[in-house]
């Protein structure tokens, strides 16, 4: 079975600073990896996904993530954050024809 570990439950960062949200996964087979964002009192929105191909994945709102198979990681990065990026971020993993398994989430707080 797959599992996901999000190493940081909360990440405070100043506006216009870079940010990295860490995600590690565990699986014995090839995986698909996802990052979702959830703004306060709203539903889930897909930021980006890795299914195959290039290990550097670009998503919406200036976010990107890099799939590192040797380190079993899929860290999310943004070079310059905005106040509007304050939200909960979830990393998730699946394999072929299986449901998504979510990490516990990282609360990103952007400080003016």
């Amino acid at each position, binding site marked *: 079975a797959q599992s996901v570990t999000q190493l940081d439950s909360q990440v405070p960062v100043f506006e216009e600073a870079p940010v990295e949200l860490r995600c590690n996964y565990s699986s014995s087979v090839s995986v*698909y990896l*996802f990052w979702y964002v959830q703004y306060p009192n709203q*539903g*889930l929105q897909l930021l980006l996904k890795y*299914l195959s191909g290039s290990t550097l994945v670009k998503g919406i709102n200036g976010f990107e993530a890099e799939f590192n198979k040797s380190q079993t990681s899929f860290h999310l990065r943004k070079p310059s954050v905005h106040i509007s990026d304050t939200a909960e971020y979830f990393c998730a993993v699946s394999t072929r*024809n299986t*449901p*998504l398994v979510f990490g*516990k989430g990282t609360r990103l707080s952007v400080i003016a």
Partner: protein
Amino acid sequence: SAVISQKPSRDICQRGTSLTIQCQVDSQVTMMFWYRQQPGQSLTLIATANQGSEATYESGFVIDKFPISRPNLTFSTLTVSNLSPEDSSIYLCSVGQQVGYTFGSGTRLTVV
């Protein structure tokens, strides 16, 4: 990708009663899943809804409490029965396709 209509969007229910949540998909999908998101928590998989057969439940979730129907490839219901305040959560349906996963907008349940 598929579009999901989930109803109701929110409800307030008395303890001891039941709530049935519906998800309608605009295309036929094989994989359909139900998740729970408790306040301040991540998403936890309740079950996989199988068309024409009994749902497959995750550890900690039982059919008597969370009966699921999946009469065809575009529709599913989740019932949360014998409600208690601990059932207050957001419930989401999701479908899996080759391009990724889509989520319903969620049902916010409050049990009083």
